[in-house]
Structure formats: C-alpha cells, structure tokens
C-alpha cells in the first residue's frame, strides 16, 4: 500500500466545490482515483476532497520525442517526468471539512488558497471521515453529472472499505451500499451503474 499522509502537490486553482493541484510526475501509485485527500483551511482545520481526475498535459517536446522510431532513452523519460515543468494535474471534488475537530459533510466555508499543499489522508482519517455522520458526503459525488459517478464511487468505497475492515468494522461496506440504494432509489439508471461498478469491485455477496 502507498505511504500515507503523503504530500501530493500544490494547489493550482480552487473553488468551493473543488480544486486542482499540480504535482511532479512520479512512478508511485499515489494519488489514486477515488482517494480521500485534504487541504488546509487555516489552523488545524481541513478541507476534504476526493480525487476524481488525474491528467497529464502533453507538450511539444513530449510529442516530438515519442514521434521517433528509436526506443525512448530511459534518461530522457526520467528527465521529462521529474525535471520539466509539465505537472500531473489532480482534480479534487470537495466533500466536507473539519472545523475545531468536528467533521462536516458539507461544502467548505471557503476555498483553499493557491499553492496550499494537498495531502493524502491517513487510514485513520479516511475511516474517521467516512464513518462520521450518515454518509452525507456521498451527495456531492452523486449530484455531479460530469463525473464518472459509478466508477468514482466504486474506487472510493473499495479504498474506504479496506480501511474499515482492517479496523474491525466489517459492516461499513453494507451500510454504504444501503445508503447508495436509498439515495438513488429514484434514479434507476445511475443506481444500476453504481451497483454494477461496486459488483466489479467486490463479490456481490459482500454488498
């Protein structure tokens, strides 16, 4: 498993509903699609978000380098991934915040600032955030038609369920599945997509 509380990158732009961070292109498996991350909100307060898009910009030099029949020199690959200012962009959907120690599944009162550092949440923090309240943060995921909702929920649930299960809470997965069914009871098409994606992530008997 990837190292936790890892510094992912610095914010490039932000808003109340989400933000985008830039980071060097590295070979590690972080950040991951569906990962819970946090950005500072002053003092010990934090804004939480879920990674919904990871994109790497191309540029003229990269296009030129790949347009050759010779095998790519690994030194050139390392240079482009590490040294050149072509960052990986991590898009994050805001899903809640922590103020004075309490977790809220509401949109944050303010946006994080540019160049703020974006961190990956620890296992304990992921369990705390997803175990707080009654899954209110899910509505931020479900209301956005531009997101690959089913895939995003499946990725997130798989990561959170593993943490809860390791902490001895084996019912979290069933609870979140029930909540999703309730929230999507009037949207059969999306419900089927979400259940289908969850079915790909877990044996159906586990849900």
């Amino acid at each position: 498993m990837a190292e936790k509380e890892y510094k992912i990158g610095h914010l490039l732009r932000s808003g109340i509903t989400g933000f985008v961070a830039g980071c060097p292109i590295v070979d590690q498996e972080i950040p991951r699609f569906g990962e819970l991350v946090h950005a500072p909100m002053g003092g010990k307060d934090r804004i939480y978000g879920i990674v919904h898009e990871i994109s790497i910009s191309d540029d003229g030099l990269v296009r030129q380098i790949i347009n050759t029949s010779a095998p790519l020199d690994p030194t050139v690959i390392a240079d482009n991934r590490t040294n050149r200012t072509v960052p990986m962009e991590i898009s994050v959907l805001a899903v809640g915040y922590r103020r004075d120690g309490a977790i809220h599944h509401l949109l944050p009162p303010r946006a994080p600032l540019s160049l703020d550092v974006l961190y990956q949440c620890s296992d304990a923090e992921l369990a705390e955030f997803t175990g707080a309240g009654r899954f209110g943060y899910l509505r931020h995921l479900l209301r956005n038609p531009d997101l690959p909702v089913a895939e995003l929920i499946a990725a997130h649930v798989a990561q959170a369920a593993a943490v809860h299960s390791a902490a001895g809470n084996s019912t979290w997965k069933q609870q979140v599945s029930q909540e999703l069914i309730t929230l999507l009871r009037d949207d059969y098409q999306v419900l089927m997509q979400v259940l289908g994606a969850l079915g790909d992530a877990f044996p159906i008997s586990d849900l």
Partner: protein
Amino acid sequence: MPLDFLSVKQQIQRLAADAPAQLKHLEILRRHAGELLSAYAAKGAELRAKVEQAAAEDSFLRAAKPTDEALNATFPLPAAPAQATIIAADGSQISPSRHEAMNYFLINLGAIQLTPSTGETPTTFTRSELHVAEYDARGSYTEDMVAQARDKGERVLLAELARAELATAELAAKSPQLIFTLTDGPLELWGGRSRDPDELESFAKHFEDYLAALRSLHAAGAATAGYVDKPRADLVVRALEVAATPQDQLADMRHSRPLRGVTDYDLFAGLLAPGARSAIFALQSQLSPKYDGALALHFFYLNVGSQKTPWLARVEMPAWVAESAAMLNGLHALLIGQCNVMGILSYPYALHRAHEIAIVSREEKDQVTQMLLAEWRAQGLTAGVVSHKQAIKDLPGRTRS
C-alpha cells in the same frame, strides 16, 4: 494600415520569376566547388600552406585549414562510449534598454547534466546574474557586451560543472567516465571587432576568462564542443577559393569570391551518409591564433539527418578533442544519439533542454523590473521612469490605424 500586401505580392512574384536563373547559376558554382574538393582531396598539406599564406596577407580571412584527413573523407558513426556524462549549457538574457525604467541586464545560464541510457534523472542548474548598468563603473552596456558575457558564462559554467563531476567521482572512489560539455553555437567567442575602446576592453576581459575556462576543461580531461545547427558558413568553400587563386593574387583574397553563394552545407550534404562526419578542419580566423596549442579551433560537419533528408550540423571543438580518438568518436556518437532522441527534428536533446532551462520569459523580465523598482523605492533611491517613446508603445489598444 497593415503591410502593403499588393506591393509585397508583386515583389514575391518577381523574385520567384528570377529564382530559377539564379539557382541554375548557383548549381554551376556548386558543381565547380565539388570538383575542387575532389581535386584537392589529397593535397591537404599544400592547401593548408596556401591558406596560411593568404591569412598572413589578410588576417581577416575566415577559412578552413585541412588537417591530415583527406578533404572529402567521410567517417561512419562509431560506437558510443559505454558510459559518458553529457553537460550542456545555454544562456539567455534580458538586454539592457535605456528606454526602460531601469537600465539593467540579466544573464540567465541554464545547464543539464545527464548520463544517457542509464535511466538516472538528469540534474539541472540555473545561474542568474543581474547587473544594474547605471550603478556600475562602466555606466552602460551594449547588446554585444552582454552577448559576450553570456557566451563566456556558458563555458565557465561548463568548466565548473565538469570539475565538480570529477571531484564527485574521486570522492566516491569511482573511475571518472568521459565528460562531454556542449553549447549551442560556435566555439569561437564572437567579438573584438568593435572600434569602441570600452567594448574592446570588455571583450578582452571576457576573452581571457573564456580561454581560462577552456584550459580548465582541458586540464579536467573533459571534451567540449560547440554545435551549429543548419550552418550557412563557407569555410571549406573559402579554402577552395584560396586553392583556385594564383599565388601572386593571394593578397587580394578579400575581393576574390568566385564561389560566392556556395556553402559548406552544399559541399557535404550529398557526401555524408546519415550519422557520418566529414574530415576535421582547423579554423582560420582573425582570432584563431589566440586559441593556441591544445585550444586550437577545429570543426567537422555531421549529417544528423536521414537517407532521405540529410541535415547537417557543424561541430566545433578544440585541438585536444580533435586529436583524441576516444573524445572525437565519443562526441560524434553521442551527438547522433542525442539528435535521434528528437526524431526528424534532429537536434541534441541536452542542448534543447539547456535552452528550456535558460530561457527568460517576458513575464519574468517584467517581474525582475518590478522587483528592482520596489527595492529601489524601499531603499529611498530614485528609480528611473520609462521613456515616453516606450510608454506610448506600451499603451493598450490598437497600434495601427
């Protein structure tokens, strides 16, 4: 109004109509130059002596001097060294302008150090040097002076990085691998032709530092070279003109240009197979005698293109590189390898990256100007103002009527 496109179009049509006749004439000259190259191919020593004689008559003569290699010899791509370090440097500048609020210039040097094919992440370096001309004893700088300071800075930076790499290898008790240092453009520092005593004095200082950097690279056992993409020079052609000139007319070589219009590119493009280099030539120029001994300037042409589309570069190097088989073949092979990284736009990857690192953007220039002005004001100093001419040019909105 924009350009007078009607007039421009008429001029284009006239020029295009004249072009075939000129090309036909140029083709005759190119063929003649090729014949001279073959005729003198094995007479290198004779031609060298004649070029030296012509240079003694006219020190401004710029021409190639043959070495021991036949003039039309070609050398195929050799094997690349098992491991080698490439250090490439480039520079850019914010040029001084009396129209700006502050008359300053900045030289930004960028360098990259890499070991091809290892997968190790290259190391990059930046060095920015700011000079505020009006608070300097000299009072003002010309663009040529800044360009000389930049070119010297590139070679000095390469010498420092090469020595640092050697020291690192010694500390790690590793046998140092060959180091190849590269810059874009000729190896010869351009300048020294001004009539302004201030400019001449400035050039002399930079030139001394430049030669010291070359000596330092030589002492470190590092190779160094200048890479000229798409060269337009006629150095070998000029030598052939010398060859075709009667002995008693050498004193008037300056006015004798029977092959005017033919370039070295024309001579070698059809001769060099992909990856091959030409013979090595020594460079005869006004300043070349000052590059003496191991520093003596040499060059060869290199076909970095393909069978279908030849593309030549001129590679300039000092004598200590030209006379070492390991350095010469290593340089030849590494340059082809670096060019191959870039596909059909063959140009050494390391040099392109050094350029990327060194380049100063317009936004960065504005930022430096603002930083300077803010600091001057904070210190209670009188900062200048933009000239009226520049201020009007900077006005937003339409610039043509």
